[in-house]
């Protein structure tokens, strides 16, 4: 089972650590956006990727559960921005940009920066199965303790 960047928005403290780290790792431009309500938004590497469908140059490619972006093939047409349901692709003047799961870091055996740096553990780089298992456990415990949910 592959690893993915997974988000637990209830943990996000809107500290922007992921944005600052991502920008540093990607030449000053962050591929993740922290929204004021406390949710980091980044490319979800969809299985049915709408962006892929509109890209006509092969700049977007699906491989090993990832949506990979090849900047050198991008024309900057902005069609993928208009196709992405989550607004997770940006336009840097003349070319698109999006999360590459820190491919340069993974080549060195390192985790994506956002998952590693998140002080609150809101972003993790893990298997979906482990992640859901843990989340269900926590939800069950919280229910058993009789705590209200406070999702604001």
């Amino acid at each position, binding site marked *: 089972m592959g690893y993915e960047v997974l988000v637990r928005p209830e*943990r996000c*403290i*809107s*500290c*922007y*650590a992921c*944005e*600052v*780290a991502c*920008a*540093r790792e990607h030449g000053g431009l962050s591929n993740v956006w922290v929204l004021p309500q*406390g949710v980091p938004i980044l490319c979800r590497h969809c299985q049915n990727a709408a962006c892929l469908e509109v890209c006509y140059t092969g700049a977007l490619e699906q491989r090993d559960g990832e949506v990979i972006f090849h900047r050198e093939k991008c024309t900057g047409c902005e069609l993928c921005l208009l196709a992405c349901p989550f607004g997770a692709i940006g336009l840097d003047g003349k070319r698109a940009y999006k999360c590459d799961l820190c491919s340069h870091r993974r080549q060195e055996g*390192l*985790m994506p*920066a956002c998952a*590693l*740096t*998140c*002080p*609150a*553990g809101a972003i993790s780089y893990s298997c979906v199965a482990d992640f859901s298992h843990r989340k269900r456990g*926590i939800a069950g*415990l*919280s229910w*058993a*303790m009789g*705590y*209200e949910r*406070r999702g*604001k």
Partner: protein
Amino acid sequence: MKVVPTICPYCGAGCPLGIKVSNGEAIGIEYITDHPLTKGALCPKGNAALEILYHPNRIRSPMVRERGGWREIGWDEALELLARRLMEVKEKHGPDALGFLSSAKATNEENYLFQKMARLLGTNNVDHCARLCHSPSVVGLRKALGSGTMTNPIPDLANSRCIFILGSNFAENHPIVSRWVLEAKDRGAFVIVADPRYTPTAQLANLYLPLRPGTNIALLNGMMAVILREGLADFQFIAQRTKGFEALRASLSDFSVEKASEITGLNPADIVTAARAYARSEASAIIYCMGVTQHATGTDNVLACANLALMCGQVGRPGTGLFPLRGQNNVQGASDMGALADLLPGYVPTTDDGGRRRLASLWGREDLPPKPGLTVVEMMEAAIEGKIKAMYIMGENPAVSDPKAGDTLKALEKLEFLAVQDLFLTETAQLAHLVLPVACWAEKSGSYTSTERRVQWSEKAVEPQGVLSDLEIIGLLGKKIGLWDKTFSPEEVLREIGLAIPAYRGITPERLKASTEGIFWPCPDQSHPGTPILHRDRFLTPDGKANFYPVSHQPPKEEPSLNFPLIMTTGRMVAHYNSGALSRNILPLSRYAPSLWVEINPQDAEEMGLVEGERVRISSPRGEVEAMVRISEKVIPGLIFLPFHFPGVNFLTLKELDPEARIPAYKVSACRVEKGGSHGV
């Protein structure tokens, strides 16, 4: 390429920060994943830290201020001038005409040597900004528990079953703490946050208590009244390990949850819920910060926290304890090192003849000055009165951080001689006669003590360019003055610290360098593993027992009035750091808030006809400042919030001091908001 382990230069959490170095140049940062506190995490400030290193605004040469502006001078000339001017003032007006501000950003070794220099020159006028953040913890927790520090490590919060957070917005200011609070919550802990402002920390709460500013004691006493009424106190603990409980019980006999509710504005049922949750859980922790300390009743507030913890026996075990979160990377260490006007290294009062003479003999003297020196704010007052003639400020920015900062500017301008040692030409440095540029954290090695009492070694990653480290400067200066005949390496100074401070005796440079997670003091000898959890079997008081000190609510020093109808409170935001010297010119951070803003409740905004983004003038009886309006329900009606990272905010704050800890009452001031700044809308 290699990764050099350093300690993050921002807050007091002490997160490790790896610097990637290639050909002598820092090329990036790397996360250190095997550290028990962070597991690799870093907040936005840590992520941006490298920007400091090669910042174009860094000062690279000593400079003197002349009529035409700044003139660069050589290091020898600069040190000669500094030594001469300090000695001139000492000869003419006596040593107490000198004032020294040490730095919570400098290493333990630098702080130790700096205060040693001041004291060898014959004055205790040496203080630092711990005075402005946690001096009530030092005073209050020392009285109650025998040590003014955090009792348990941050990761130990995961073992808590109830976490009570009072006046701390750690989600923004010590983000790594969130990880462990959330971990506890995942394991079923109940989280209570009391804060007048609905902060990102409050969002983590199971129970949020929006108390009125300056009413901490009423809330704590109300909770204690509930606990006593319902028989939830830990009487066995009280009997075996504490003193003074009867006086506390008597003081609470006429207090009730209803009275607490009246003063705090909280729902009585919520106070009861909080009290029961805290008292009943098998391990409860209290996290507090400047919402507790920065009041004229700061020490009392801290004592009330200690009373609650002691009453319920929630100290000295995993998952329990008191967590005063410290704001600067080495504010704990600077305090330990005795960079405080009334305390020598190891918290020995200057008035303790035995302790003082022991230190004097270590330093080759017969005795040291016994009279406590002037504290941060008092030094500025003395400067205005002409009693202090010269100041030497190492890495602090009082022109922005002092309360009623208008007075501080006057004081600094009046000095015959002011020397400032800093990375940047800060607001304070601009007033100096002599500016000395220093190495930043990555350009020097030394030890830092985190808020957890975790002593860690930070290695030099790159060679400094044109600048010297604080330790080198103090060493050279002391040599010129004739206090010692050589300069010192950090290792040498740390060994002397081990001789001066019993709690550091077992902490050697070799041990620190070999350790990935540091050593918790007290560490009495070299085979001792360190002490992560304090007060397990006995408290650090002379008789080993903790003390209750009854305290009662006192109204804040300033209440809203006809002219100044709003209450102003101040605090921090995640993307900025303290006086702003290390964030306002760091682009990856400052872009989140390039200029000062003020948070106003929608109801107040509507009454005043204010819209989002509008510029307003905020004034208090002491001064005024301009800010941009942010309309938000995070603050209750009648309350405004300003982040204190920008110059001017402290023109408005109160200088009233806590009688014991001498901390200014920053957190509550009366003010008014008027439309239209001088730059128009």
